[in-house]
């Protein structure tokens, strides 16, 4: 076996971690201006990591006049119904089950509680890195019932699927709140949100594949590009969308081919197909989106928390009182335009879910805003 290349091998490392070149970014911005030809171009992305990359790198400031990139519902934690959070708090508090979940879910407000508040009141709430950690805990503590709050888009759903298929222990169940991105994109296109094209999410696409968007692009005549997370990835995707529009075509360009194949990850897709059936699902702040959720199939119903504990599916799509996350998630309002942004709502005291998750558009905007400094002043 030949030794693995050392991490010091800059050439190799830079291939996967250092696509940063300011001059190139600026040149591509100039080409975007040419391609857009002065016409307004409104592109939506649906990925928290894209929002982070765009804001962190200040890409919006580099885009020509009229070319806009707006954030859609790309934060899975933000669209998780408040009623589900309440139901899991109740389960932990009243039935003494241990609830495991991802770190940024903890402080998201339900209507009554957040999981962090339930924990402070004595509930057994544990943060895990992934579902396999939760299952390991369940195997070690057989006297306790474990419920894993499985949130996430197509990137995360296969991890739940594969563990459920393998057969977790009897004291373990999953509250599956996974959501699917293409039906949400279709919902947004149907709602006439004035979107000229989509930057398709990079990580979700590693699973579902670039081909998964072809039908949507064709039916709605909207150019799309799957993009990675470096500034140049995103700029090239925007340029491609602008060029597609100029040429009058609506295709799916796979800019992120180093990670995304056309048909996606077949092993992951097969596992999802085996474990889940497609359901309608509530997206907090948006409403019911047909065919956008995943529920465990009959074969795996014994691992289904809702069935095991008789939790009724709750709507719970309202946002907390006074919070504009719904509009933020639809890309119709920038966080800075919310009256509470930085004045009563900040990451330390979040009002809505978009300010909690590090993938939330409000939390990202806050991190890079002037208000951050101002609101901390006494």
């Amino acid at each position, binding site marked *: 076996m030949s030794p693995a290349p050392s991490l010091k091998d800059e050439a190799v490392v830079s291939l996967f971690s250092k696509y940063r070149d300011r001059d190139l970014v600026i040149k591509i911005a100039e080409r975007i201006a040419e391609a857009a030809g002065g016409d307004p171009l409104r592109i939506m992305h649906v990925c928290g990591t894209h929002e982070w990359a765009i804001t962190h790198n200040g890409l919006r400031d580099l885009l020509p006049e009229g070319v806009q990139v707006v954030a859609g519902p790309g934060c899975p934690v933000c669209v998780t119904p408040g009623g589900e959070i309440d139901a899991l708090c109740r389960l932990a508090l009243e039935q003494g089950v241990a609830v495991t979940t991802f770190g940024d879910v903890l402080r998201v407000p339900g209507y009554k509680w957040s999981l962090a508040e339930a924990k402070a009141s004595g509930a057994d709430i544990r943060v895990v890195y*992934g579902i*396999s950690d939760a299952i390991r805990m369940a195997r070690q503590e057989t006297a306790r019932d474990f419920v894993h709050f499985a949130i996430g888009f197509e*990137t995360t759903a296969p991890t739940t699927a594969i563990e459920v298929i393998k057969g977790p222990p009897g004291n373990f169940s999953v509250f599956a709140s996974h959501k699917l991105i293409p039906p949400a994109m279709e919902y947004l296109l149907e709602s006439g949100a004035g979107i000229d094209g989509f930057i398709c999410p990079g990580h979700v696409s590693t699973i579902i594949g670039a081909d998964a968007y072809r039908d949507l692009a064709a039916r709605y005549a909207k150019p799309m590009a799957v993009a990675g997370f470096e500034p140049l990835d995103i700029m090239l995707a925007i340029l491609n969308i602008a060029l597609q529009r100029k040429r009058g075509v609506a295709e799916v360009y796979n800019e992120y081919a180093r*990670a995304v194949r056309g048909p996606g990850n077949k092993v992951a897709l097969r596992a999802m197909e085996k474990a889940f059936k497609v359901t309608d699902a509530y997206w907090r702040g948006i409403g019911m989106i047909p065919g956008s959720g995943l529920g465990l199939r009959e074969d795996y119903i014994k691992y289904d928390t809702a069935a095991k504990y008789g939790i009724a599916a709750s709507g719970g799509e309202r946002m907390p009182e006074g919070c504009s996350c719904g509009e933020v998630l639809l890309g119709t309002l920038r966080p800075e335009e919310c009256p509470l942004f930085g004045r009563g709502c900040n990451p330390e005291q979040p009002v809505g879910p978009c300010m909690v998750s590090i993938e939330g558009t409000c939390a990202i905007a806050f991190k890079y805003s002037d208000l951050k400094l101002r609101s901390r002043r006494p």
Partner: protein
Amino acid sequence: MEVCLAVPGRVTKIEGEKAEVDIGGIRREASLELVSDQGVKIGDYVLIHTGYAITKLDEAEAREILKAWRDVARAELEG
């Protein structure tokens, strides 16, 4: 610990369906179950999400896109 993050890591050890990956100098365990048909070898880069490798990163494609970025910029210069 965030839901949707995925990070690149280099595979340093493989034992059955488990791999040890180096993520920017930190070693972690990752499952290879979801990439079992992608022929992941020691030295390969994979994207890791919540403890699972979700895709192998393709070096040839990475070189392609580097070239594409440069070409785009050059086309502009030549104009």
